[in-house]
């Protein structure tokens, strides 16, 4: 997950490296994803999420569809 100044810069980088385009997400949405995803692991009650819980976090910030489907 790499940062770019704009979607145009993503396209230039994709062309330069002959990669396939993935998903371009606004910084504000990635911030919401991080806020929903990261709980403080110093809490004694912390535990790793299940696959379905992680999928629900992605959906909660609008990341839905085939590209965002975690492996079962």
């Amino acid at each position: 997950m790499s940062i770019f100044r704009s979607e145009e810069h993503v396209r230039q980088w994709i062309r330069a490296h002959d990669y396939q385009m993935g998903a371009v997400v606004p910084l504000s949405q990635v911030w919401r994803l991080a806020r929903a995803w990261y709980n403080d692991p110093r809490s004694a009650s912390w535990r790793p999420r299940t696959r379905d819980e992680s999928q629900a976090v992605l959906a909660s910030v609008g990341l839905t569809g085939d590209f965002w489907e975690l492996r079962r």
Partner: protein
Amino acid sequence: MATPLTREPAIDPVALRVFVYDETLARGRPPSSAVIGARFDTSPREARRALASLNIGKTVLVDPRSGEIWMAGPFSAVASAYRVVSGSRDWWANCAWDMFGVSMIANERVLIETRCTDCAEPMTIACDPAVEPSDDAVVHFLLPASHWYDDIGFT
């Protein structure tokens, strides 16, 4: 006469996880096995064994050669393209998603120093864990979610 086996004390996994993150937040980098061993009154070897068997998904990953912590999500043990700064402390984040994760776990306003992946233009992003950023920048997810954990370093 048989030599008695000396058994080193096992490290409680919850206490280990808490220590790893306390140390990372305070010092900027995950602790070495020597530091972990000293904290839990055991050897670096036992510390590496305990790290390897933490079994908390992809949250704490060790370098398979050295046994030392490689990443303690969202923190990286090695320098990356995402430096997160708060006052006199700084951390390395694994990626553009994790740079915000550092701010969330530290629960602090931070400055993120990075560069555009395409043109290498320096970028500084202010992150407040309570205020959504308004920067125009974007994040590119190269791999679909089903492949994120195939090669976590590449991802």
